[in-house]
């Protein structure tokens, strides 16, 4: 853990909706949202991969849009809505998650939360995307294990059915 070089007295309380619940947390202005979610709020699904927005492992939904939580300051999300994978599966697995399981789409699982959120956003906006649109939607989620094919296949399977908006 890098020690903060400057003494901070900016500890302030913010609140935002996390997976449908109003949450309060005390932060420094320079606290990164990913770290606040993981370390202060115990939400472990978003991961730190590259720490600079390239790999997508930190993906969360902010007001329904997929964003890189490693590039957002916690202070910025005051009063807004965040959804993580924990929220998607709050009431049971979503159709996408069930299909990812059925088709054995993931191996180590590190990229999975980001992929699931990105594809959830895709299908929420476009229930029947083309192959190209699916690939583009997850282009920012890097996976080292699977070669992407089983991931794309699962999304395609769900896209071919009638899709009910998740979240």
């Amino acid at each position, binding site marked *: 853990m890098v020690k903060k070089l400057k003494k*901070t007295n900016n500890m302030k309380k913010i609140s935002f909706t996390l997976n449908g619940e109003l949450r309060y947390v005390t932060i420094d*202005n320079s606290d990164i949202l990913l770290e606040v979610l993981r370390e202060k709020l115990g939400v472990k699904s978003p991961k730190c991969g590259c720490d600079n927005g*390239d790999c997508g492992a930190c993906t969360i939904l902010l007001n329904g849009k*997929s964003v890189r939580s490693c590039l957002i*300051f916690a*202070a*910025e999300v005051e009063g807004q809505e965040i959804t993580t994978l924990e929220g998607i599966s709050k009431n049971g697995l979503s159709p996408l998650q069930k299909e990812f399981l059925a088709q054995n789409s993931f191996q180590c699982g590190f990229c999975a939360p980001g992929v699931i959120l990105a594809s959830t956003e895709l299908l929420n906006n476009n229930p029947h995307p083309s192959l190209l649109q699916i*690939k583009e939607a997850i*282009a920012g989620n890097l996976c080292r294990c699977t070669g992407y094919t089983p991931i794309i296949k699962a999304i395609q399977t769900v896209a071919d059915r009638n899709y009910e908006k998740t979240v």
Partner: protein
Amino acid sequence: MPIPHDFEYAKPSSVDEALDLLSEYGKNAKVLAGGTDLANLLKQGFPVPELMIDIKGLAELYQIKLTGDELFIGSLVTFTTIIKSDIIKKKFNILWDAAHLVASNGVRNRATMVGNICSAVACMDSAAPLLVHDAFIHLKSKNNERKLPVAQWFVDNRKTAINEDELVMGVSIQLPKQKYAGSYQKLMRYSGEDLSQANVGVLALEDSSFRVAFGSVGPIPKRSLKIEHFLDQKEITAAVIEEAKAMIETVIAPITDVRATKEYRMHMTKVMFERGLKEAIERLNLLKN
């Protein structure tokens, strides 16, 4: 990685409030929009702002407005919004194309086009489209307002002509009074997200004139008036294209870095220039018929 230096954070609810803060803090404040570049910089320990001014509460900066011939894009318009915009798709197609190629959707949902040109990294995607359309940057400070031609905006890699106390309100282009079509070509290492190793913007106009801009092959993106004058009023044959491609060697100065060698960039810029030129002409022909 935690950011080593803390800062004050303000989220002004009016442009005037933001300008007051900028006037007070000057270079000790940083304007925060999408944050996809700034957050990275801060993690690396530099810059060290005293104050972060989050401008996302300023509603007027989110607009895309067509007034007569002037198309205005506010500074908080993200690349995702650009992609969803019918006006930009129809009237500013080269920027629309470029927006699709920026990073990935998770970045595009936050990153703003104006933020892209304020970071002014050499590989930025927004520059060539703005350059070929002779865009204006709209700047405001507490006591002043000005419109700067984009050709004067880029000063060096990561350096623009912005003053310490200024806020970019947005960017505008004057729509040409004749038919026009553009093409944006971006060289990436693979499909999906990547920074450009080289990029080319070409605008073809009905009066047989052209605008050509090169990015990521020099510290700042530039138009090439030399190539534009050469192409002007000519029938674009294979021979003309070859001659124009040869001129590129005198116009750009690519470097070798982790993404590509300068020889490769030079070679590929010529290839992309040809592709861009042909695509712009093809699109223009479709409009004419």
